[in-house]
C-alpha cells in the first residue's frame, strides 16, 4: 500500500524537527485532537531519535524514512532505517525508555525488518473523531 505521506532524509539529529513539523502539518490536515497529535509526534520523535543515535553509529548517517498512512480511522506510521536492527545498547547515553514510551503512546507497535532487510518500527494510532481516508481520487 502506498503511504499517504513519505519523508526521506539523512538520519541526522538536526532533521528530526523536520519530521515533527511534517507530522504537525499532517495533524492539521486531519484536524487531529491536540493531545493526540502531541502523542503521535512524541512517539515518532522517539523512533527517529533511535535511528539517529543507534542505526548508523560509528559511520556516516544513512537514510531515515518515515511513512504515514491513514485508513479506517487509524494512522499507521513506519520509521525505517538501513541499520543493523534494534538490539540492546548497554552503553547508550539514553535511559532506554524510547521503545516503552512509544508502546505506551501508540495503539500498537511492531519491530521488524522489511522485504529489503531494512529495520522498521511500525506504530498505529487510533484517530477517534478524525478517521478519514485522505487519499484524493
Amino acid at each position: 500500500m502506498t503511504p499517504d505521506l513519505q519523508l526521506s532524509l539523512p538520519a541526522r539529529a538536526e532533521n528530526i524537527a523536520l519530521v515533527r513539523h511534517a507530522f504537525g502539518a499532517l495533524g492539521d490536515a486531519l484536524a487531529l485532537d491536540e493531545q493526540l497529535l502531541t502523542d503521535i509526534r512524541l512517539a515518532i520523535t522517539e523512533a527517529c531519535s533511535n535511528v539517529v543515535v543507534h542505526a548508523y553509529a560509528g559511520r556516516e548517517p544513512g537514510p531515515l524514512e518515515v511513512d504515514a498512512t491513514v485508513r479506517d480511522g487509524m494512522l499507521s506510521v513506519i520509521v525505517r532505517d538501513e541499520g543493523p536492527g534494534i538490539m540492546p545498547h548497554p552503553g547508550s547515553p539514553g535511559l532506554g525508555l524510547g521503545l516503552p514510551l512509544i508502546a505506551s503512546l501508540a495503539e500498537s507497535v511492531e519491530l521488524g525488518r522489511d522485504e529489503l532487510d531494512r529495520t522498521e518500527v511500525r506504530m498505529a494510532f487510533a484517530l477517534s473523531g478524525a478517521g478519514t481516508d485522505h487519499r484524493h481520487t
Partner: protein
Amino acid sequence: MTDELHDSPARVRLPPQPVIGPVTLHVASGPLIAPVLSRVVSMILARADCPVDRLDEALILCDALAAHVPPHSRDGHISFRIDARAGTIELRVAELGHGGASGLIADAELPDVGNVIEHFSSSRRIEPAADGTGEELVLDLRFGSASPADGRGSA
C-alpha cells in the same frame, strides 16, 4: 522579576542548525500536499537563513504548486525533493505525467497577477523522469546575495 539565567553575560545563543541533505516528500495527491509542503519548505528555508520576505514568496509558490499539481500527477502521488545549498534551494516536483510540468506552470497563471510559479522561482527547467514515464519540474529559489528577482522570467 530578575531572571539570572537570561541576564547572565555567559549566556550563549546557538545558531539554528540547517537541515542537512536532500529531503524527499512523497505525498498523496490532494489536501495533504499544501500543509506538508509549506511546513517542510519553510523550515528548510528558515534554517538556511533565508530572509523573511523571500520565505513568504516561497510559501506562495508552494501554495500554487499544491493547488495546481494534482491534475498533473502520474499515479495519484507527487514527489517533492528539496535540496538546500548556499543561498538557494532546489525544489524538484516529480511524478508528473508527460506534459505535466508545462501544464503545471500554465495552470499557475492568475488574472492581474501573472504566473505565480514563474514570478516566484528564480529559474525553472523541465527534465524527463529517470524511468522515462513522465517528467519533473525543477525550480531554483535563490535568496543569497543575488536578488530573488534576478532570475525571474528565465527558463
